[in-house]
């Protein structure tokens, strides 16, 4: 049997993958708190989410720097190179997901302390948050297990978020004629937009799973050409 070498490098790469994917756990915590803050118009909890985003940003900077160090010192190739490239993308996605939670939490003081102006719209916002949670945990599981099919399924899960976003938009239009409620509806529409982006970020992580496994980068869905799947050779 050939002797295994570069054991420390492999251990370091495994440790960094674990640290990166833990960032998705941090996003789930942030999402849960954000939805609770939105449901109860809890400004203090929203402020906690905003402050706690520094932890996600810190994880991004830490893992990013250590991945760059591995690139500089270990000259990774093949699967290792694809993994490092993917983890850089994943960390960027995680950082963006954290920022979307912050964006929503910054809106909560603007929505006022009164009961929600439209229960149906709030219900859909909360459903979007719940679905984003599912997407985030599924993206993590797909990456950990290198499960391309599970990663591809993220597109279907994301369709649920997209549909809810469209429903929110329809409700906002209907509320638009009511001067007492339309400001609230517009604020919630911004929150829905942020939640829709979180779902997209999870799908992006799924695409990185496919890249690590197959060596080909493939957009699961081409946003500029709906219904068409974009494929390109790997260009790490």
């Amino acid at each position, binding site marked *: 049997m*050939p002797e295994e070498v570069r054991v420390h490098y*492999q251990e370091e790469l495994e440790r960094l993958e674990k640290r990166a994917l833990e960032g998705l756990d941090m996003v789930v915590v942030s999402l849960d708190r954000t939805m609770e803050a939105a449901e109860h118009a809890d400004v203090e909890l929203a402020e906690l989410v905003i402050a706690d985003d520094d932890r996600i940003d810190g994880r991004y900077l830490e893992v990013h720097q250590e991945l760059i160090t591995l690139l500089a010192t270990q000259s990774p190739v093949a699967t290792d190179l694809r993994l490092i490239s993917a983890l850089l993308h994943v960390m960027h996605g995680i950082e963006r997901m954290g920022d979307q939670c912050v964006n929503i939490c910054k809106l909560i003081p603007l929505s006022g302390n009164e009961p929600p102006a439209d229960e149906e719209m709030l219900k859909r916002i909360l459903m979007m948050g719940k679905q984003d949670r599912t997407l985030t945990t599924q993206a993590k599981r797909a990456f950990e297990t290198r499960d391309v099919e599970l990663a591809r399924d993220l597109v279907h899960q994301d369709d649920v978020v997209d549909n809810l976003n469209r429903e929110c938009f329809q409700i906002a239009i209907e509320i638009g004629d009511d001067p007492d409620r339309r400001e609230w509806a517009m604020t919630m529409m911004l929150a829905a937009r942020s939640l829709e982006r979180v779902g997209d970020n999870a799908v992006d992580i799924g695409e990185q799973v496919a890249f690590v496994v197959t060596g080909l980068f493939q957009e699961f869905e081409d946003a500029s050409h709906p219904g068409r799947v974009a494929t390109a050779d790997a260009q790490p």
Partner: protein
Amino acid sequence: MRQVPDPAAAGFQTPAAEIQTTARRTEQAAGPRKNVFELRDVTVAYNGKPAVADVTMDIHHNDITALIGPSGCGKSTLIRALNRMNDLIPAASVSGQVLYHGQDLYASAVDPVEVRKRIGMVFQKPNPFPKSIKENIAFGPKILGLGDVEERIEQALRRAALWDEVKDRLADNAYGMSGGQQQRLCIARCLAVDPDVILMDEPCSALDPISTGKIEDLMLELKKEYSIVIVTHNMQQAARVSDRTAFLIVELDQAEARQGRMIEYDDTEKMFTNPSDKRTEDYVSGKVG
């Protein structure tokens, strides 16, 4: 424009016009690649024991082709089979076919000296003659009776990116040059006899990173006019300079004897980003020794 050697003079039948010395890879990408070597089931044995077995591969013209693999996999043996250097080892034998521009390199009518003129070689350790810089370059053309020796010296040194550094001290002993300069002198010596192919067996392993960088820059420049095959232990060097990479490993045959085999041969980009064989992946990643 460099004069293209006439393969017919060495018993080869390929018209010189077919040797496309200035084609770049990008220009050729649209059409089928021109082969400089075609190896068919090539086995090189020492005392009847195969050192490297059953290698089949096409080596493209104006490419840099890297042979990589662990010690003892037969990559140096294989590269030496490309200009019949193994003929100098009495116990060595070559079976299978090595075609050079479609002609059998080991056919009885082929003159091995002419082969080595067309297919030059640079070795691991710079090996200049204990003579002046000028005499080192002039040696080959004089022996072969080639004309315009003075011009050949300047052209060879220019092509080897050495002219500006040595033009004022051509009479100095070559041993006074740095290791990197000596290696470029050896490349210039090879170029002075107007080869078609340059074989390089670990050309940078004795050099510092700056000298290595200069040789690598030189290789990229030279591939516009020549085909280059390089054996290297340095994975990053293979990744940096080569167009195609062949990976060889050591295997045990049925009699438990060690022999080299080619496992994968593909575009270098693919070999280093998404190799097809796990053994290649493990080796280029440095996961197995």
